[in-house]
């Protein structure tokens, strides 16, 4: 029993030491990576691969933008990772190997320190507003925010801590309406899903979500929505492996060609 215990303790100490070493190795690898970018950049315009972290609500538009960018910039590959804006910010803070980040509101990207982002970023590239999503044909005849307070309407919204929930709270204040949702979801896609599946009668989602649902839900515009505009910022990360390529893609998103894709999906254009 005793020698066995000694072996176990030895092993525990040894593996802790190993764990310590590997942490160091990772840090070294990380700093080597940031020193790297000057090397492989060719003079004829950026080529190579970049990784873009983007808000879940940008999934369709950014996938299209990535394909168009690759077509017009031969030799480039754009990889995406889509998640909730807060998750993206957490990933960047924890050193995720990424080059560009685009979030669904300004408050979220502000959680990144100046040291996380390259100089001159973030910059706004799109706006979005809320709309009421209802079952196709609007069977409950919902025409305004006030209609959502009726007792037999099962309303679903985003929870206050996530960007779409903050927008929902602002809209409630602007319209002077007190909503009582049956569920406060963690993401706008969860809200849309509950309306699409018929679990809920109505949900507050972005205009772009309704358009993206392609007929599975109908959108109902309401007056107060225009008073609460969400602005989407994009930024090149300080640790981008290839800052030139990263800046080139971010500029493409903000170019006229990029704007067109975004506008087609229902996004608005931010004031310059």
């Amino acid at each position, binding site marked *: *029993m005793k020698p*066995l215990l000694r*072996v*176990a303790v030895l*092993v*525990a100490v040894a*593996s*802790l030491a190993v*764990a310590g070493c590997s942490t160091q190795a990772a840090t070294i690898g990380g700093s080597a990576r940031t020193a790297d970018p000057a090397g492989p950049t060719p003079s004829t315009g950026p080529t190579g691969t970049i990784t873009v972290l983007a808000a879940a609500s940008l999934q369709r538009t950014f996938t299209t933008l990535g394909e168009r960018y690759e077509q017009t910039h031969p030799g480039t590959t754009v990889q995406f990772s889509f998640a*909730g804006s*807060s998750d993206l910010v*957490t990933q960047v803070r924890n050193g995720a190997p990424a080059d560009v980040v685009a979030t669904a509101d300004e408050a979220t990207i502000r959680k990144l320190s100046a040291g996380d982002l390259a100089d001159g970023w973030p910059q706004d590239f799109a706006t979005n507003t809320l709309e009421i999503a209802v079952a196709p044909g609007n069977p409950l005849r919902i025409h305004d925010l006030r209609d959502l307070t009726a007792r037999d309407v*099962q309303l*679903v919204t985003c*929870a206050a*801590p*996530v960007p779409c929930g903050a927008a929902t709270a602002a809209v409630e204040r602007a319209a002077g309406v007190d909503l009582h*949702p*049956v*569920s*406060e*979801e*963690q993401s706008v896609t*969860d809200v849309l899903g*509950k309306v699409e*599946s*018929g*679990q*809920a009668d109505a949900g507050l989602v972005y205009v772009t979500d309704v358009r993206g649902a392609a007929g599975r839900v109908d959108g109902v515009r309401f007056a107060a929505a225009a008073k609460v505009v969400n602005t989407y910022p994009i930024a090149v990360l300080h640790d981008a492996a290839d800052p030139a390529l990263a800046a080139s893609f971010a500029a493409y998103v903000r170019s006229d060609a990029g704007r067109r894709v975004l506008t087609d999906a229902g996004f608005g254009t931010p004031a310059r």
Partner: protein
Amino acid sequence: MTAQDGGPTTGRDQRQRRRRTTRPRLPVPWWLPVPAALGGLFVVVPVLAMVGRVDWGSFVALVTSPASTTALGLSLGTAAATTGIAFVLGYPLAVLFSRSTARWVGVLRALVLLPLVLPPVVGGLALLAAFGRLGLLGAFLDEHGLRIAFTTTAVVMAQVFVSMPFLVSSVEGALRVGGDRYERVAATLGAGPTRTFLTVTTPRVLPGIVSGLVLCGARALGEFGATLTFAGSLQGVTRTLPLEVYLQREVDPDTAVALALVLVVVAVVVIGVTSLRTRAVVA
């Protein structure tokens, strides 16, 4: 040795007596502790690292906020209800599974244990398909004014779905290990099936039942995916502690970590208390 033969004894007495009577320890291969220690560390280190992140200065304030206590209360209540329901429904299932040799029972068994390997979010989708407003049974229930979605009932249903298989497989294992000779003896002595079940089978597999209940309760306490998909998330109604942790993580990682620690402590207490009880029962 049973608990009865020594009169009233404490757990410590029993353990000491047991230690004296145990046979010499069977030697293990010399290399075995290496992977064992790595395995242990892999689980322990992240938990300790999380504890290290806790902001103790504001811990009490974070944990006792109304949102936190409501979520904790809801979690404990639903997990307790789930464990009770899983016992009433799952124990008979386990008995049937362990007694039957029919092939279709084998198939049924595989289906019932499916949630063990299914991602919980898929379980949530399955529950929606059955009990959602437009679901197989849900549409019928809705017509009769019974709405399950977005209620605490939905939370318990999601938890039962994912955690009952733990109880079933644990109890079934205990039933198979012991064989059925005591039951057969009881039958020859004239005891009916119900009496044999209650006075022979149940006491015999009690440790298996207890550990099954613990596993089931712990799994229910941690349930997240199926709840989020099927029940939604509303403070005091459907937002259990894991959902609150996930939500708080968005804005306030300190609160999320503090709540996560509460969840860990509750789980450790549940497992600790019941494993002591189990030992007392086994001894």
